[in-house]
């Protein structure tokens, strides 16, 4: 180098470095940010996990609640199929007449089954459940009417169901035709409110995730202030400086989403045994179902998106304030 003649064209200044293509530089920049931010996360496992846990809890709450309501809805769906109509016959109707009516109704196409519960059977059941046999002994005669329990075909629409009900009510032997479905409808309405609540809660906690990620990124920017200044001084673009923070936000959101799934799975595991016992008491083979793969993906991708948006907001607000002076 030192023996280069002074009048010769200066080699250092003229030989420009060959840079790879724009696409390559772009991809490499992203890959580099991706790897370096992962490295940062691994180097500070406690801080990273803590942030991810906060996000995880915020995501697990709406996700878990949604799952609960989903499960409840499934139970209700199971009951909906077994809609029953109770026909309370007049007291004057004799047991034999009730049997005949049951037979007649059994021929109707809208009905799948017709069961006759004789007043004596009803009384026996009542005695058994209420434990008031002594009191019942005082009664001169059985006060309970004959009861026909009908199961309509499950594919009847509400209008047909209403028509059937009116039809049955008009029968001379029938005192009262009662469709045991009103409470199912009410439960459905309540579940709909619950679902809406989940959406609201989800929106609120999604906002919380934005704030958590944004604040973490803001602290990260403050901690790396010197580094940002130096890199800006030697020609780093805003995109270059922004990139690792955005990736960091995505990682936090992603980890938070995974954490949320783990928390929901843990809660389900803890609930499985008591729910199983309860289902057994109702002679149901109901099991709590876990998050479907699609729902799981939604939680994780949603978390990552929230992380990205949160860090984007933080970076936009705080990065431009750091300029070398």
């Amino acid at each position, binding site marked *: 180098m030192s023996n280069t003649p002074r009048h010769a064209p200066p080699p250092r200044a*003229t030989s420009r470095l060959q840079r*790879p293509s724009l696409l390559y530089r772009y991809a490499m920049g992203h890959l580099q940010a991706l790897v370096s931010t992962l490295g940062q996360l691994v180097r500070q496992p406690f801080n990273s996990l803590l942030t991810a846990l906060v996000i995880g809890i915020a995501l697990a709450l709406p996700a878990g609640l949604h799952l609960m309501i989903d499960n409840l809805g499934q139970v209700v769906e199971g009951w909906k199929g077994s809609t029953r109509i109770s026909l309370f016959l007049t007291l004057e109707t004799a047991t034999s007449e009730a049997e005949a009516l049951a037979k007649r109704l059994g021929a109707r196409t809208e009905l799948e089954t017709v069961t006759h519960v004789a007043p004596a059977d009803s009384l026996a059941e009542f005695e058994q459940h209420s434990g008031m046999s002594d009191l019942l002994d005082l009664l001169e005669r059985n006060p309970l009417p004959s009861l026909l329990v009908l199961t309509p075909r499950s594919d009847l629409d509400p209008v047909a169901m209403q028509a059937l009900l009116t039809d049955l009510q008009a029968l001379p032997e029938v005192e009262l035709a009662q469709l045991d479905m009103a409470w199912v409808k009410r439960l459905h309405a309540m579940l709909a409110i619950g679902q809406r609540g989940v959406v609201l809660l989800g929106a609120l906690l999604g906002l919380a995730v934005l704030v958590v990620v944004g604040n973490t990124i803001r602290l990260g920017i403050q901690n790396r202030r010197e580094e940002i200044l130096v890199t800006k001084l030697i020609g780093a*673009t805003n995109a270059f400086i922004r990139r690792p923070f955005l990736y960091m936000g995505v990682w936090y959101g992603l980890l938070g989403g995974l954490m949320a799934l783990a928390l929901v799975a843990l809660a389900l595991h803890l609930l499985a045994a008591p729910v199983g016992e309860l289902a057994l008491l109702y002679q149901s083979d109901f099991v709590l179902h876990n998050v479907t793969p699609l729902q799981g993906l939604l939680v994780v991708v949603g978390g990552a998106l929230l992380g990205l948006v949160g860090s984007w907001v933080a970076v936009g607000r705080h990065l431009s304030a750091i300029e070398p002076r």
Partner: protein
Amino acid sequence: MIRLINVCKRYPGGHQALTNLTFELEDGEMAFLTGHSGAGKSTLLKLIALMERPTSGQLIVNGKNLGKLKTHQVPYHRRNLGLIFQNHQLLYDRTVFDNVALPLVIAGHRHQEVRRRVLAALDKVQLLGKEHLYPITLSGGEQQRVGIARAVVNRPKLLLADEPTGNLDPDLSAEIMGLFQDFNRVGVSVLIVTHDYDLIRSMPNRILHVEHGKLEGDYPRRDRPAANPAEGQTQVTQSSERDATDEEDGDE
């Protein structure tokens, strides 16, 4: 390489840092910029690196009028400069290698190319073998050489140094200046802000003297060091007057 035409800089507080500064640094020239603290030397470097914008006047660096550069173009302008600072401005949580590699990484060079260029730059400042150390374990002189390696690694045509020997003892300072002369010898333009008069007196390069934001002296390059400072002083006054008229003629 650098051309200033009536550059003024007034800070928002009302402090007038530079007043009607006009001079030119030729391609491949090396010069010192001296003056007391607060004379406006650092402001000038900040203007060239676009950390600040002039209040008025024209500033042309490497053929580009900086007044016409938009904010988003500033990073690309800085990539063409090699900046060296008194406090090194190294990243202390990264190795020497990573520090020197930073400009190339920012520019998006291939890994192999980065490695090759970084090792070459470290070789040039005689730090080869220390690339895996952290800057904090190096001496002040070595840290400054890391800073220089980082400044030259992407082969800028212009090096700007702000008090590069400010914290170093005379021997180390001379060594650092020797490095700058080496780079200058292969065609890099160099502008060094310093007030190490003892050191630069022994060097032949041009000296620009700034006082209260004004160019008060322009000592041209001498082929032999001046024997005594008083002799240089007379030379200054004459040449600055001559240069000032030259500039005016050239602009019109």
